[in-house]
């Protein structure tokens, strides 16, 4: 991808309509090596899905260029479509009133796969994705995890060289999501090039070879998960729990030397406070002074995770 830019034009107002331009992608440059599992990380609306849709030929870029397997996604649409697979997260995108097997047969023909190949490949995919035995059931009776695995089977029907996965684990239960991540990692290990979008940092950390962080349509960092963490290498994290904390208390924490951000999360009976800072031991020794009278529980310091690095890079904006 070189200088990839996408601007959507929409209208605002009911009677007096005015045109509004929304910049979804603002000059993206990315290169993904064959066999790589690449993760594009970003908040909702950051431009992840737009990027995937351009690469899968569903959208045209406003400017810039993108090539998949050396083929231009704008001018060589047919060739690109034959060599890629794609899976969008969520339950939609399947024929619920047909069986899983009928869904796969239909798409096998739309991908122009010879019958003798699809007859062999479909049962293999059903077995590999844990759907064997349920293939004759209507999709409307499938669990969300089964639907997502059926999506993945559909994406693999044409044995694509490159697979695009747009938030594939969204809405899945932890076990289903873990199983799907293992499958995706297995596909990459088997030689498939995979372009994955997610906003689950641990997911990217666990399976991606390289990642890029996108913010407001621009790439703000890219590299291995380890190198991204090193970008905020000086940052450590102090976490603790309190029964309650006042806005003034949070302001005093933010005012401590070396503190870059403070976030809170409501737990069932407490509030967890996460402090990103340059020198965790210094912050820990000052906690008692800053939060005088507040009882602190489970105070700990740890190294920054990919999620911490992501929060530092992206902040609270999309």
């Amino acid at each position: 991808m070189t200088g990839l830019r996408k601007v959507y034009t929409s209208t605002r107002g009911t009677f007096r309509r005015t045109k509004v331009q929304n910049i979804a992608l603002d000059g993206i440059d990315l290169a993904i090596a064959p066999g790589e599992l690449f993760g594009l990380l970003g908040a909702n609306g950051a431009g992840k899905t737009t990027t995937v849709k351009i690469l899968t030929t569903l959208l045209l870029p406003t400017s810039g260029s993108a090539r998949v397997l050396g083929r231009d996604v704008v001018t060589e649409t047919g060739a690109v479509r034959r060599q890629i697979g794609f899976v969008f997260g969520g339950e939609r995108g399947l024929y619920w009133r047909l069986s899983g097997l009928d869904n796969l047969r239909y798409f096998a023909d739309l991908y122009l796969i010879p019958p003798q190949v699809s007859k062999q490949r479909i049962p293999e995919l059903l077995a590999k994705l844990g759907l064997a035995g349920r293939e004759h059931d209507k999709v409307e009776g499938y669990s969300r995890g089964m639907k997502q695995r059926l999506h993945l089977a559909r994406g693999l029907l044409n044995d694509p060289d490159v697979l695009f996965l747009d938030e594939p684990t969204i809405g899945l239960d932890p076990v289903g999501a873990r199983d799907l991540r293992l499958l995706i990692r297995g596909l990459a290990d088997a030689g498939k090039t995979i372009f994955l979008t997610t906003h689950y940092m641990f997911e990217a950390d666990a399976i991606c070879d390289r990642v890029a962080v996108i913010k407001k349509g621009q790439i703000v960092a890219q590299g291995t998960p380890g190198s991204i963490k090193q970008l905020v290498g000086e940052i450590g994290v102090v976490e603790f729990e309190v029964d309650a904390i006042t806005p003034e208390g949070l302001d005093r924490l933010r005012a401590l030397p070396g503190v870059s951000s403070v976030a809170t999360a409501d737990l069932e009976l407490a509030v967890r406070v996460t402090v990103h800072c340059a020198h965790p031991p210094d912050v820990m020794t000052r906690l008692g002074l800053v939060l005088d009278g507040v009882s602190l529980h489970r105070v700990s310091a740890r190294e920054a995770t990919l999620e911490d690095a992501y929060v530092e890079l992206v902040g609270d904006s999309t």
Partner: protein
Amino acid sequence: MRALVRAAWRAFEVSLRLRVVSPWTYLNWLLFPVIFAAIGLFMLTSSGIDRVAYGVLGGGIIGFWSVAYLDGGNSIQDERWQGTLEQIFAVPTPLFVIVIGKILSSLLLGLMSFIPTVALAYFGFHAALPGLDPVRFAVSLGVLTLSFFVIAVALTPLFAVWRWAFTVLNGLEMAVYGLCGFMFPISQLPSWLQPISYLLSPTWATRALYASANPTPSANFVSWWLAALGLSAIYLGLSFLLYRFVDARARVTGQLALA
């Protein structure tokens, strides 16, 4: 080529199976044609007008038209609602091949509209078509089917890029009943409207169909068939441009994903 034919066949099969379980299909090919046929038969047989063919066949033609014209497009709208429109758009099979499969299933269901309406005419109103010329009738029905097919293939991509196409084209469905003379001769229309009728291929095919069902000395079957086929060929040429436009437009606006 064989792979594309197989893809169209699968689209036909899947489309047919999805319609068989949809209540709308039964409204369109069974209930609505019977209602129109019943009204037409009641008016034409009780008033003594010698146009019983319009009562016997009119409801069937309307049902055929409704299913052929709208079901293909509505099925694209259904694809949008269930999130599969992007999936079928991004496969190597061109969209028009998938649409052809869908429309063929519409035509099959649409043709079935003649079963309840002809049965109603025969058993309910004792109306028959004793002067029917079977060969000319079969050819005229074939030409009518082709003209419906081409119109449906041409208009269906509009549903993919413009959500308002669903509303507008549904609204125009009934206008065509009158403009093409499905239930009465277009000579009954105001003279300023008749030129519009002449630009619509079903007008000529319908005229031939009714003439073959009811002996008409002035009938010029070959000219009417050729007029319907010629207009269909023009529509087909325009639809080629429309498909190219739709492909580009859909990829610019991202409308395929919008429900």
